[in-house]
């Protein structure tokens, strides 16, 4: 009887198909091998920055709302502990994505959403793409990339139809070893854009930051 508890969070949501807007980046000519230059060097540069803290603005577009929902917060990226999005709120909450999945931390406590293959795939992709760790993603995504000087742009398109419908595509823009923009795009009217400000200077996270913004190891 007690085993019911973790199972009752209902994963009810089978989203309809999403259209893929035409984008010059999504073309065979821009398809990249996961370990080719300059992405390999960029990944090395990203990994070299063990701890990144930056302010972000998140714009959420929904098809049934005329204006985006705008949220502000701080993003933290740790080479070992994953990604942490701290929303200033109200209500204040932190979304943590790491090797163990998704965790939502708020004043009410920590909530682990139920295991769901689609959510797990999105988390997996986001976690690796933020490190430009492309080889593990190559199995499930077509990867397209463009770079010009220090600026670069990357798009991940799920190979599976179901994943394309539920997740859409993931886009990243950066400058050198810094990620500037992340977009999860199902359609023009159904997308999330995270604009990342220049990183704050920090060599490593403090113990308090790790405790507050990441999952305990």
């Amino acid at each position: 009887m007690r085993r019911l508890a973790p199972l009752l969070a209902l994963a009810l949501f089978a989203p309809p198909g999403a259209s893929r807007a035409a984008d010059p980046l999504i073309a065979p000519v821009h398809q990249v091998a996961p370990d080719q230059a300059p992405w390999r060097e960029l990944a090395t540069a990203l990994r070299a920055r063990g701890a990144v803290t930056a302010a972000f603005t998140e714009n959420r577009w929904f098809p049934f709302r005329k204006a985006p929902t705008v949220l502000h917060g701080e993003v933290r990226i740790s080479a070992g502990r994953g990604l942490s999005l701290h929303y200033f709120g109200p209500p204040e909450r932190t979304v943590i994505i790491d090797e163990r999945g998704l965790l939502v931390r708020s004043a009410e406590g920590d909530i682990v959403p139920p295991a769901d293959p689609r959510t797990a795939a999105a988390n997996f992709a986001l976690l690796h793409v933020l490190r430009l760790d492309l080889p593990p993603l190559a199995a499930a995504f077509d990867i397209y990339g463009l770079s010009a000087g220090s600026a670069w742009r990357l798009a991940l398109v799920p190979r599976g139809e179901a994943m394309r419908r539920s997740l859409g595509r993931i886009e990243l823009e950066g400058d050198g070893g810094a990620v500037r923009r992340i977009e999860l795009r199902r359609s023009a009217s159904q997308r999330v854009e995270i604009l990342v400000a220049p990183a704050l200077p920090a060599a490593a996270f403090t113990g308090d930051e790790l405790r507050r913004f990441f999952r305990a190891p």
Partner: protein
Amino acid sequence: MTPLYRRRLAGSALLGICALLGVGWLAHLDLRQKISTDILDLLPAKEQAPEMAMVRVLASEAEARVMLFVLTDAAGRPAAAGAARAFAADLARDPAFAQALALDDPAPREALGRELFDRRFTLLFPRWLGEREAAFKARGGVPAHFSAWLATDTAAALTRFLASPQAFAFEDLLPSDPLLLMPGVADRLKGALTPAEPAEPPARAEATRVWARIAASPLSEEGQDPVFAAIRRAAASLGASYPGVAVADTGVNRFAAASRTRIQHELTWLNALSLAAVIAVALIFIRSPWRALHLAPPVLLATLGAWVCVTAAFSRVHILVFVIGAMLTGVAIDYGFYLYMQAPVRPGEEYGEKVRRLAKPLLSSCFTTVAGFALLLYSDLPLIRQLGVFVGAGLVCALGATLVYFSTLRNPFLEARAFRRARFLSSGSRRALRRALIALWLIALPGLLLIRWKDDVRELEIPSPAIQSEDARIRALFGEHDGQTVYLTHATTLREAREALARFEAWLLGAAPKARSLSLGEVVPTAGEHARALRFLRTETAFPLQLRAALTAADFDAGSFAPFFEAYARQARQAADADLDQAVAALQARLSGPLSLLVHAGPPLAWYITLTGDAPAAAPPPGTQTVTAGQLQSLNRIFARYRQSALWLSLTGLAIVGAGVFLTYGFRDGLRIFAIPCGACLGLFGLFGWIGEPLNLFHLLGAFLGVCLTHNYSIFSATSAYRRERPPVSVRLSALTAAASFGALSFSGIPVVHALGETVALMVLAALLTIEFEHFAPLAEPS
């Protein structure tokens, strides 16, 4: 034809016919059906306490049928998800399983979600409306303005929701659900149930788990061997597609099967050991050992008679009756010893003459013991009643068989061995030892005040550490922990049960405001809530327009919510009172896996289950029609009640025995005779009190039997004492054989059988010592 020949012929014919009839009776029985290994059969079928009936139903119908599986690959890592689904599919196809599913398979949850979504206006809207009304009242709103306020409040809530992490998961549903009915219920269920981070061990998320429900009761044979065979087949089939995958499982049936095997094993070796011990004692004390084999037929016939009577008297007999019934061997042989070992008073004494001479002590001891066991028939506990019939009938058969069997012997006298130093203690030494024994007894008596009772139904089972450890490991991987309390809210119908659940929820909120709880009450409204929602849909016709306006004002594209407004209008037109029952039935049909345990539609009872963390210590009041469904606690409570009942029966039995002795032998001699059984019983329990051994129902049963046995020894020895004879050797032999057979029981792995064995063995030994120390010497008649 000589009189002896005629007697032998008649006796042999009588015993032969009885034996044939008995064996024929047993042969015609379906012993698999007749003999139960089900622990629940130890409890009364018509228990007065309602929770007991529910526990019985629950135990056999719901949770007890669940089996849990964990799959690992060759390296001990969690197996692939595909392996779990293939394994679950194999199990589900087998008739031994009613259901099986891989827990990481989202399909059942999605099907349930779709059902909830399709019936959201019937199931979710009423509760949502009730909560919004409560919020409106709390703000002091005027009822006439409720729908306008509700529209604005809904648009504001939707705006806030879009900023939450859950918004993406629900964004495709929101055009059909701007009231946030689905996110609301998901949030409530998730908030109540999903453990916080520290309670979420990484191993759980990583385990590959399969949940299954077997088709038959786990306590029956159909719920054991066929199920285990199906698991073996599914695992073998899995090995072909996923080489190296190992399957670990647990379930009530694993415990039940282990207990059954151990009980059957004990039945064999305890009986064998008991018989061997009895024969060994007999051989030591009897001059012609081969002639001691004449003691066996009456014992075998007594056992046969006991089996026949108990199987005829009860539709089902628990196997423990036969395990404990092994004690009959030690008691049944008493009459043989006493009759067979009495020397003729003169050369050529006729058998009939000898029987008449010994009739008084034989009959009085037999019928006093039978009367004592007959008292057990008044118990509420089936096991005690069955024991009463088994031993009582067995003793009557033993006496009858003994009297008839020895009539067929040419020389019905078995001579005892004469030991060279038979009286190695002087009379003075014996008196001194007797006084020391009395002093020890006086010291032991205050220990009666220290007696502790331990009424734990688990003592009926044989501990299986390996299975328990595996069970704990697997259940931990399924996220089970001890901090949750399971409540069961019951009624005759689901509607009534839902009303009771509402009362329970109100009580729980007051008793433990911070308790996290979960039940299908989150998604099933009460009849009152449903009726209120129907009224709102029919009377508040302005609400859809008000909501459109509020959504537009909050920057939403109201046109995008057309699916909602169409569904709302349809519901307002078509909704009826009967929808609720249909929706609950449809929802129940969609519940699979662990969720299916949350509700039961009956008959005879319908119930809802509530899981609560940090539950209050107090029990829910009767008006909530809710009980904690902890089967163990309920059984233990019942067990304690029966122990109290048995204590009362034992004390009454002791009083009856005492009264009989005082009436027969007068106060002075009666006191001396009664001192043996009564003193042995009280002294032993005092000793248990001093050494802190927790006592249970079966110590009482042992004492009951011990009193009957020692009472016999007391009467036989007193009869000899009146004739200025030493205690008869048959008493010594009888007591030693009883001590040997019950001593064998004290080696049992079943705690209660051990309790019974040690109680009887120690009482008998204490009585024998007292008798040997010339306790009855003062009764000697003047020469």
